């Protein structure tokens, strides 16, 4: 059985994670933890392996070595069925939204529920779709196609789709990338609001410092495949280290 993490127990513990593509050593002994109801931001330059890191957490990529413990269970040695059950509890917001463009918003939201064999009645499913759409402020788009929505709206629908399974953990891959500052701010606020409404713990990948400042309880800086520095926004902004400082200028 999956055990629920206690208050001070980390919900995710990553230890010495390594992942290389050929000679390109993307992650090199990376370690970080995520506590209950915490928002941890992983900061890093483009191409530093941030997406690779969270894809390892959800089992889309297999790391070469290390360990990823999520809600008390080891992801790397999990069989496929257990991993599928675990994925119900982990929401993933893709960098490119990944909305199914052949389906309406409603079908997009129903897809994870239907495919994970969540046992709820038609009525309940309907209500859940409406509920998450209201929470992201887009109830009127229910019968639209993703292509009819703006980038910011698509991002929110994608967030709604991750929320629909009521996950314990949400992994955000650059939630504000490609959005204007105002929409970016709205998304940042939404992330904070989601934590309050759904009681989630989150790892947020970003290099948008406004979003980082708004959402982060703690920041880990990913440099050369390692967690180079950790601390609160204020701590790191005051750091003298050039590698850390460059993000805050």
């Amino acid at each position: 059985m999956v055990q629920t993490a206690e208050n001070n127990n980390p919900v995710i513990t990553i230890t010495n994670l390594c992942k290389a593509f050929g000679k390109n050593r993307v992650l090199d002994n990376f370690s970080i933890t995520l506590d209950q109801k915490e928002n941890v931001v992983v900061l890093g330059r483009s191409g530093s392996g941030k997406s690779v890191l969270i894809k390892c957490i959800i089992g889309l990529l297999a790391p070469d070595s290390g360990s990823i413990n999520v809600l008390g269970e080891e992801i790397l040695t999990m069989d496929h069925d257990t991993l599928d059950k675990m994925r119900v509890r982990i929401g993933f917001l893709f960098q490119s939204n990944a909305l199914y463009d052949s389906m309406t918003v409603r079908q997009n939201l129903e897809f994870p529920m239907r495919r994970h064999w969540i046992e709820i009645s038609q009525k309940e499913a309907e209500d859940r779709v409406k509920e998450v759409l209201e929470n992201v402020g887009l109830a009127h788009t229910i019968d639209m196609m993703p292509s009819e929505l703006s980038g910011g709206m698509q991002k929110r629908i994608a967030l709604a789709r991750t929320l629909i399974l009521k996950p314990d953990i949400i992994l955000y891959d650059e939630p504000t990338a490609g959005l204007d500052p105002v929409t970016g701010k709205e998304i940042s606020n939404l992330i904070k609001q989601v934590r309050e409404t759904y009681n989630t713990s989150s790892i947020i990948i970003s290099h948008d410092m406004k979003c980082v400042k708004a959402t982060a309880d703690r920041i880990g800086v990913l440099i050369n495949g390692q967690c180079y520095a950790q601390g609160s926004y204020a701590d790191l902004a005051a750091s003298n280290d050039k590698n850390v400082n460059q993000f805050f200028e």
Partner: protein
Amino acid sequence: MEIPKAGKVFLTEAGALSRFTGWFFHEAFRPRYEWREFIRQCFMIGFKSLPLVALTGFIMGLVLTMQLRPTLVDYGVEARIPAMVALSIVREIGPVITALIFAGKIGSGIGAELGSMRVTEQIDAMEVSGTNPYKYLVVTRVAAATVMLPLLVIMSDAISLYGGYLGVNISAITSFDLYITQVFDTLHFSDLLPAFIKTFFFGFAVGLVGCYKGYNSSKGTEGVGRSANSAVVLSSLAVFIIDLLAVQITDILGIN
């Protein structure tokens, strides 16, 4: 021995395609089956190709007849036109042309669709939503293409023969009954069966190559375009190669 670079690329690609095919047979016969998506794909792949296939089939029959006529008149075997047309359409032109049209429409469609799903991470999103994307996307499309192309070819053959009838009628009035009688007198079971069987392989090849190219699309919109394009090229080539093999096999088996 040193293998030249182009040869290496070819061998790597061939290896990857074979693995992809093996994966298809591995996944296709294990539950859970994606019936709903399969039916939907049959509709998308088969039904939506109907108008195009019907139109090209009709033109093919008409034009073939009109082109054949002068030569056959020269040889004084005008009366054999229906027989000639029937044989060439049913045995070769119908299946191959339809398969090529199918490769152009469906092969590129699948390549572009799966390619853009790969690039925009929709395939990853399916995977984390408790879905085996290979089963859901690839197996259903390949199976639908395999089942639908033979049906399209049968329909195209029939329409071509009707086009042929109109072609005959342009210069000499012939009764439809007579035309049809002549057509079916010429056609034997041994003409129909190999032609019918090879269309399954055509459909399978087009579906599989389209999926292979799309599923392994490289990042970026340019990658999607490349997938769609090479899906058409490779699947058209595959149609000809299968056709070549089919004629050899029927030859060896003596059903000619």
